[in-house]
């Protein structure tokens, strides 16, 4: 492929198509609208489906339905729409139906600053829906990473039968940069596990060695039930104590037993660093800029960028905290992921850098935290 000058939201749409997404249902909202706009003409051209729904609750419901019908499906939204989707995120987690939810963060709460960036949905993306549930949340910091992580979001979602959230922010979504996208055949694409048993032997929630039971699409002659109630291996409601907690433990195990696959982060100059700046999303760009300046001024500073923010990469942060004197956590919120870093590293080691006024954190703000 040749170099293109591309926006983050475009890269997300292109990534979804390469990953095999053929269904999108959504409701346009700044700063995510370009994703829906692009897919509204790209999907039909590829034989896929695009539906503009009446709201965000219905959007995710349609996505879940499409996924049970065998399609890779996605929706994209921002703060207020993400709040509306929480109910069905729980439904997808409970029913173990793969789907990808893109949330381009803008400043909230409520209608907030519709056109300005934020990272205020970090905790919502983890615990926004009620009840214990596993989730995977990925956060890109560049246009290229947005492409790559959108594909990964689909792959994880299919591989682990779980909703995956791509947590972008307005800067990454609207920023344009030069990218050289790989040819589709060079991109690793994972499809959901199919069964080789006859219909009468198929149990959609059976315990398997991988903790991820195969998912057969509706309409293929396999009769089974799907419900948001706790359910047995056939999918029918249960109140049996020996089925409820084992189910919960299995859906947590399918994520927790695969952390080496799921947790993605990048480090630069962290070996021997006194101060490590740990960041994610567009703030990671300010952080890397600041670390480079700090090193030019002979500070022993290192940089760590989280691409997977949930599950939280505890062991990596523990290791960084073991060698570094201080961990600086810049975020476009008043302190969310910093709570996790503090939990792992200890409060005394963490210095927060926060900003929640709709502007990016500047390298200077972070440099002051490194030097101060």
């Amino acid at each position, binding site marked *: 492929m040749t170099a293109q000058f591309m926006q983050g939201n475009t890269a997300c749409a292109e990534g979804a198509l390469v990953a095999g997404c053929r269904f999108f249902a959504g409701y346009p909202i700044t700063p995510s609208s370009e994703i829906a706009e692009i897919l509204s003409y790209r999907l039909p051209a590829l034989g896929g489906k695009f539906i503009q729904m009446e709201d965000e609750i219905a959007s995710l419901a349609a996505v879940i339905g499409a996924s049970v019908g065998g399609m890779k499906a996605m929706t994209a939204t921002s703060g207020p729409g993400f709040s509306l989707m929480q109910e069905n995120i729980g439904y997808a987690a409970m029913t173990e139906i793969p789907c990808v939810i893109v949330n381009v963060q803008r400043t909230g709460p409520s209608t907030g600053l*519709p056109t300005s960036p934020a990272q205020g949905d970090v905790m919502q993306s983890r615990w926004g829906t009620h009840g214990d549930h596993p989730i995977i949340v990925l956060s890109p910091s560049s246009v290229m990473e947005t492409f790559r992580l959108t594909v990964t979001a689909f792959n994880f979602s299919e591989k682990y039968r779980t909703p995956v959230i791509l947590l972008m922010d307005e800067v990454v979504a609207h920023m344009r940069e030069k990218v050289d996208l790989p040819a589709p055949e060079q991109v690793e694409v994972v499809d959901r596990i199919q069964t080789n048993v006859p219909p009468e032997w198929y149990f959609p929630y059976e315990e398997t060695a991988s903790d991820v039971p195969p998912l057969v699409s509706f309409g293929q002659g396999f009769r089974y039930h799907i419900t948001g109630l706790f359910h047995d291996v056939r999918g029918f409601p249960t109140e049996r104590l020996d089925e409820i907690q084992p189910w919960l433990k299995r859906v947590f195990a399918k994520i927790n037993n695969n952390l080496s696959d799921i947790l993605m982060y990048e480090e630069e100059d962290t070996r021997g660093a006194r101060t490590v700046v740990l960041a994610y999303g567009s703030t990671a760009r300010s952080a*890397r800029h600041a670390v480079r300046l700090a090193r030019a001024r002979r500070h022993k500073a290192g940089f760590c960028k989280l691409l997977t923010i949930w599950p939280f990469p505890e062991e990596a942060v523990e290791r960084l905290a073991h060698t570094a004197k201080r961990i600086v956590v810049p975020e476009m919120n008043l302190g969310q992921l910093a709570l996790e870093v503090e939990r792992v590293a200890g409060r005394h080691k963490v210095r927060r850098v926060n900003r929640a006024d709709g502007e990016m954190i500047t390298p200077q703000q972070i440099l002051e935290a490194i030097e101060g």
Partner: protein
Amino acid sequence: MVKGTTKAPGRYEIRLAGEGGQGLILAGVILAEAAAIYDGKNAAQTQSYGPEARGGASKSEVVISEGEIDYPKVIEADLLLAMSQEACDKYYHNLKRDGILIVDSVNVSRVPTSKAYRVPITRLAEEATGRRLVANVVSLGVIVGLTGIVSRQAIEAAVSARAPRGTKELNLRALEAGFRAAEELKAQVTG
């Protein structure tokens, strides 16, 4: 406080500011695309605007660099294009000491420095093409003509590639009008 600039060397920062509807975001995209695709440098383009469909403050920022671009926004502008009085008042303070200020003299009457380039950009657009709509492309001609931050071939190619069907000639005429204005300004300074 951290003393000195936090800007990396070899980084050129451009801020295009005015009102929604003046095409400043598209101008930023074209300029950045000229640098990144046609001149083979690195460029990042970001934007900031209000929720209004038209009107309201709008700005587009372009960072051009030979090296990698981490922070994609303007730290201290090398060049400010102000297409409205509000934009000029708001962003002049963030222009580098020896930075370049270009104002659309049709819209900006109070200019904070005698070293500003005052160009009747909107009028030039109307004179060259009959349409004020292409003032953004005229401004690109002025910027590239004055700074050479991208090559003339690159900006012509980028404008042509982004021009809607049937408007390529019109847009190139607008670009040419901007280049001519820049030549005249340079002649005045040296003359």
